[in-house]
């Protein structure tokens, strides 16, 4: 199984979630993070003084899927999350060796609902 983690723009979460559900992904976990990349953060003004925003808010959405689903999931995310503007984010794919469903003890493929 593979874990696919996408760092996306927060306002794209709904679109990405819908896209994932459409390609048959049924479970996912989301958290709010802050990111720094090409979109570098910026300097703002408050009452004539500067303040520096090093990190911009991003949303991380991750799902664990069977190997054969990876390509279609990645593609779905790219399509749903892309705006074409800098800061759209990244997708990382990593290997997951074992999955357990806590409720039933089922393992691996069976545990992925």
């Amino acid at each position, binding site marked *: 199984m593979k874990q696919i983690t996408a760092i996306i723009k927060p*306002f794209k979460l709904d679109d990405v979630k819908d896209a994932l559900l459409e390609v048959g992904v049924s479970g996912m976990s989301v958290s709010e993070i802050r990111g720094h990349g090409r979109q570098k953060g910026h300097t703002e003004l408050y009452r004539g003084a500067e303040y520096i*925003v*090093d990190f911009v808010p991003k949303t991380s959405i991750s799902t664990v899927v069977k190997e054969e689903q990876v390509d279609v999931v990645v593609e779905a995310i790219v399509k749903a999350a892309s705006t074409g503007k800098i800061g759209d984010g990244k997708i990382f794919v990593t290997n997951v060796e074992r999955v357990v469903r806590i409720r039933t003890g089922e393992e691996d493929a069976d545990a992925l609902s």
Partner: protein
Amino acid sequence: MDVFFLTVGAAMVLAMHAGFAFLEVGTVRKKNQVNALVRVITDFGFSTIAYLFIGFYVAYGITFYAPVGELEVMEGGSNGYKMVHFFFLLTFAAAIPAIISGGITERVRFWPNALATLLLVGLIYPFYEGMIWNGNYGFQDWLEATFGAPFHDFAGSVVVHAMGGFLALGAVITLGARLGRYTEDGRVNAILPSNIPFLALGSWVLCVGWFGFNVMSAGTADGASGLVAMNSLLAMVGGLLAALVVGKNDPGFVHNGALAGLVAVCAGSDIMHPFGALFVGVVAGVMFVYGFELLQNKLKIDDVLGVIPLHGVCGAWGGIAAGIFGSTALGGAGGVTFMAQLVGTLTGVAIAVAGGFLVYAVINATFGIRLSEEDEHMGADLAIHQISANPEEDMSR
């Protein structure tokens, strides 16, 4: 002495504007809190200017274009009563934009709204105010001749509240609903309030200040009436308890229910029996809850704080109720007739509805009244004020 009396009253009604602000801050989404605060306080400022230079003259024919020495300040022992009276009445006039604000919040542009404030407080409100409270245009005389009594609106159920609430109708409809509030397939999406404690704080401040609004409407310390105080109390309690039950413990309904009772009791608080006032409050509380749900969910009018049912409907109910529960038949002090109350109230409502559509339609046509979709999405705080409600937390890092 009377200056002291009215100063206390004016300060209490001034405080009510803080109440309006926090009621709104608590009800809107977080991204619009700052704008709610700034809009309410600056609307108060614009109202002052409009009422000082135009509105007070329209309603009462009074101006201040003379040296202080000639403004009846020092002589006659009046101690500038006229001036504190201006202050007191201004705090009522300024309630008009404060009421409307709750309906149009989260999507209205700043300066076009300020322009609306100037027009409403400078012209439309004082037009009706003068008609009722200063006998302008012979309207009250005509009512008295026709129905046996003038229109009785002691503290403004109609003059202030129904006027504000129904002016909001045109404003809210002209603006349209907030993004995502109603879907194309007819679903109604709830938009949750940001902060119940602030909402409750606003309501409490309004409740307390209301006793200045009502009792000090007597105008002089010797005219202050315990009946007005007691009736206001009981209507408030009736409204809040009714809203508790009908609104199924919803904190927003409870805290607004108290206000509904107070709105309704203004007109007849000086003539109704306390039990009558209690009943009027109960009815207002029920009306508010049902009116709110009807408007939002059935009629799909996105009146964010529910100011149309709260101030509009309950205000009109108050105007009419004074004609019912003020009668001696129901233990009241009399001196009112049902028909005069009905006609007076409907006249006010008609002026408000017409005035609201007129003013907002014109502004919308000339300047545009609504935030761009992008700004609305980002929130009025960042779009208009470049700062959020909790900047330290939200904006750095």
